[in-house]
C-alpha cells in the first residue's frame, strides 16, 4: 500500500508542518517544528511531473512525447505548477 503524505489538516484544513522525524535504524527521534519543503506541498501527480521534467533535462518536447500530450498542454501544466509553487512560497514567507 502506498501511503499518501497528508498536506493539510483533516480537521481544520490548515497546512500541516513537520513536528518529529524518526530514524528507523537507531530509533532516534528528532522533535521540533519544521515547514514541509516546497515540493512536498505538491500533490503526487505534480511531484511526478517535476521528477519527469528533471529526468527529461527540462525538455518540454521530450515530456510531451513521453506523456502523449501536445507541447502547449505540457507547457501549460508547467506554468500552472510554477504559479502554484510561487503562491505556496509567498504563503510560507
Amino acid at each position, binding site marked *: 500500500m502506498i501511503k499518501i503524505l497528508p498536506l493539510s489538516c483533516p480537521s481544520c484544513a490548515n497546512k500541516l508542518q513537520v513536528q518529529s522525524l524518526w530514524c528507523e535504524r537507531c530509533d532516534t527521534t528528532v522533535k521540533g517544528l519544521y515547514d514541509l519543503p516546497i515540493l512536498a506541498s505538491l500533490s503526487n501527480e505534480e511531484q511526478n511531473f517535476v521528477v519527469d521534467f528533471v529526468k527529461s533535462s527540462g525538455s518540454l518536447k521530450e515530456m510531451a512525447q513521453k506523456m*502523449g*500530450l*501536445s*507541447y*502547449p*498542454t505540457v*507547457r*501549460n501544466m508547467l*506554468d500552472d505548477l510554477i*504559479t502554484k509553487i510561487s503562491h505556496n512560497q509567498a504563503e510560507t514567507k
Partner: protein
Amino acid sequence: MEKWLFTPFTYVAGWKALLIGLAGITATAFIGYLLTIHFDGPLSVHIGLDISFYIFLTESAIAWISLSCIFYISGLLLSNSSIRFIDVAGTIALARIPVVLTALGLLPGIKIFNPTSFYLMPVFFLFMLPSIWMVILYYNAFKISCNIKGFKLITAFVAGIYLAEIISKIAVVQLYKILL
C-alpha cells in the same frame, strides 16, 4: 472521444495540427470553388463570384491567418506563458476542420435553399452544427495555445473573433481590388 472532438489540441498542436488544418483549409477552398461559396472570414460563409480557385484558397487562408495573428497578439499581451506562433496557427488551422463539413453540408443545400422548402431545417442543422463545433474548437485552441483563463479568456476570445472578422473582410476587399 469528447476530448478528441472538442479539445484535440490537448494531444495535437504545432506542425502536426498545422498540416492537418492546411489540408482541411485546401479542401474547403476546393468545395467552395465548386459551389462558388466563399469562406471569407473566421465565421463567414457567402455565396459569391465564380472566380479562380486560388482566390478561394487565399480567402480561406486570410480567415485563418487573421484569427491566428489576433489570437497570438492577445496571447503575447495577456498570457504569462511563453507562447509559440506555430501552436496558435496550428491549432486554429485544425479548428477550421468543421468548415469542411459546412461546405459538404451545403452541397445538397444549395439546390434546395428555399425558405418555403421542407428541407430547410436539415440544411440549417447541417450548416449550424459544424459552425457551433468550430467556435468551440476556436475557443479551446485559443485557451490551450495561449494559456489564458477566466474573464480575460472570454473577453479576448470574443473581441479577437470580431476583430479578425473585420480584418479579413478588409483584406478580402483589397484582394478583389488587386486581382479582379
